[in-house]
């Protein structure tokens, strides 16, 4: 809607005034006095009279600042270093004004007005970004928006009592804004977005300093946004430079998470694996390799390692995904539960495949989300069922059950693509020592031993091998499963034709076996 007459000029004037005030102050000096006088000026000009005017002021200010940046960036007569310095001075001044307005909004102990104002400003800047992004297209620049968001976050996380009362609200507001600006919505802002999401202060606040890990679900959502954006490009396998850059940056961030917050990766591994394409093996391994820091993993290469005797396999991992509600439609879930309970009717098994198929179009023939949910749900139910009989899951107790019927049926009935996705879903549970890793390791080995065709055994081998031949890290559960497969004569692994189908494959197996043994 049209701005009231004169508002643009007033905003421009006030902004220049403030930038002048801000930049004439020694860095770090308290600007409260100057700010108080400036607010008085804003009042005199009627800027703070109504919510509508305040909103327009922020929008116009944002647009003026952004325009200034674009003008500076197109001025090639000035060196980039000087251009950057000039841009920073303008944007930092604007950010300081916003931060002071938020801080001093309402009463000192009234957090609502402050948070409301912050959300308003973030929404306005995000809106300007999206509009700018869609208008300028390939001429869009990330810089002004990245600077505004970064500096505003740093300002609002200063160690001041007033700000400390709204710390978590600030975090929530930023996470919400970053979700709105996720790469699939503003691809031209992707790199800046990842910089923001992986900024050391942001990561510290959300992962290390948020009480009771309240920031974790928000951060998980941001990572899911990132993986979802990367997914179609990574599925393409051949990575163009822009995608490689973003992918490599993502790997760095995941490495920091693996090192500093492995429990976070453990908790959300299921959600992440749901959105990472099947061919991104190393990235997926990174996540699956995470284990709680207080856990000591037994060396998988220990001779005669008795996995069944490890105390950790009695405990289930924390999985922050409700797989039960992911099994849809409701009728299918009902039939599934009914089969698990009564192991009847047999027709359920013959109809299982059709429930998992989506379309005949290549690449989207199977409902991978449903497949993953089904595998984890059935496996979890199996573990509970075995335990309810006073037993522990092992190669004997997992067999001859409704649960194993389902797994065996899927292994036999699905085509090669479906089987590959099904086996991937199982392999995604091979992580650190816990009840799921143990159960699904046994399941994979059982399916191999009981396979009625060599194709099933070949594909089980393929799924394990491709996760092992990529560079480290490798999940503990993956290693112990493969070692068991190649060492235990029960499986007659080395007698299979596919082990020797080509010289490279033979060498590969021998090399992997050597490093395993």
């Amino acid at each position, binding site marked *: 809607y049209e701005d009231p007459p004169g508002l643009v000029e007033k905003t421009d004037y006030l902004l220049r005034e403030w930038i002048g005030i801000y930049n004439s102050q020694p*860095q770090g000096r308290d600007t409260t006095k100057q700010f108080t006088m400036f607010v008085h000026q804003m009042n005199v000009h009627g800027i703070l009279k109504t919510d509508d005017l305040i909103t327009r002021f922020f929008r116009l200010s944002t647009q003026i600042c952004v325009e200034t940046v674009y003008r500076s960036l197109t001025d090639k007569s000035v060196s980039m*270093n000087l251009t*950057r*310095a000039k841009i*920073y*001075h303008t944007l*930092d001044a604007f950010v300081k004004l916003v931060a002071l307005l938020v801080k001093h909004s309402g009463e000192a102990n009234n957090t609502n007005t402050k948070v409301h104002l912050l959300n308003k400003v973030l929404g306005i800047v995000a809106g300007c970004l999206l509009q700018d*992004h869609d208008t300028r*297209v*390939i*001429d*869009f*620049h*990330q*810089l002004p928006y*990245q*600077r505004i968001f*970064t*500096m505003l976050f*740093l300002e609002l996380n200063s160690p001041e009592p007033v700000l400390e009362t709204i710390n978590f609200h600030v975090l929530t507001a930023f996470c919400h804004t970053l979700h709105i600006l996720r*790469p*699939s919505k*503003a*691809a*031209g*802002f*992707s*790199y*800046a977005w990842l*910089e*923001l999401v992986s*900024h050391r202060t942001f990561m510290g606040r959300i992962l290390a300093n948020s009480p009771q890990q309240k920031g974790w679900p928000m951060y998980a959502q941001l990572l899911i946004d990132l993986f979802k*954006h990367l997914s*179609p*490009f990574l599925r*393409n396998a051949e990575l*163009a*430079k*822009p*995608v490689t*850059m*973003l992918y490599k940056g993502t790997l760095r961030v995941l490495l920091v998470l693996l090192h500093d917050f492995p429990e976070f990766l453990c908790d959300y591994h299921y959600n992440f694996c749901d959105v990472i394409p099947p061919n991104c093996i190393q990235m997926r391994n990174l996540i699956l390799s995470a284990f709680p820091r207080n856990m000591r993993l037994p060396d998988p290469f220990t001779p005669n390692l008795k996995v069944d005797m490890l105390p950790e396999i009695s405990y289930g991992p924390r999985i922050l995904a409700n797989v039960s509600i992911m099994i849809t439609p409701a009728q299918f879930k009902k039939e599934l539960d009914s089969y698990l309970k009564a192991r009847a009717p047999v027709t359920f098994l013959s109809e299982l495949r059709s429930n998992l198929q989506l379309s005949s179009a290549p690449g989207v023939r199977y409902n991978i989300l449903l497949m993953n949910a089904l595998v984890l749900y059935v496996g979890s139910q199996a573990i509970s069922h075995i335990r309810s009989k006073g037993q522990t899951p092992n190669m004997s107790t997992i067999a001859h059950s409704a649960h194993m019927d389902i797994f065996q049926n899927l292994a036999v009935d699905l085509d090669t693509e479906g089987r590959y996705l099904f086996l991937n879903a199982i392999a995604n549970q091979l992580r650190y020592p816990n009840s799921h890793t143990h159960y699904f390791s046994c399941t994979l080995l059982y399916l191999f031993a009981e396979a009625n065709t060599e194709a099933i055994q070949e594909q089980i081998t393929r799924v394990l091998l491709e996760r092992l031949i990529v560079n480290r890290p490798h999940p503990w559960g993956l290693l112990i499963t493969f070692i068991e497969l190649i060492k235990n004569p029960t499986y007659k692994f080395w007698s299979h034709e596919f082990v020797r189908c080509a010289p490279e494959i033979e060498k590969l197996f021998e090399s992997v076996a050597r490093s395993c043994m």
Partner: protein
Amino acid sequence: PLQKEHQSQFQYMEAAFYHMPHPSDSERIRPYVQRTPYPTQTYYIQA
């Protein structure tokens, strides 16, 4: 193959790739010794 929507996203990313963030974009202004990256020899210490 990439869907049209993703092809469009790639074009945006490709343009942004030529204006990658600079380390100083995420840092407070430094009155002294601003960052001035330079491609130093690989045999110099890197950390």
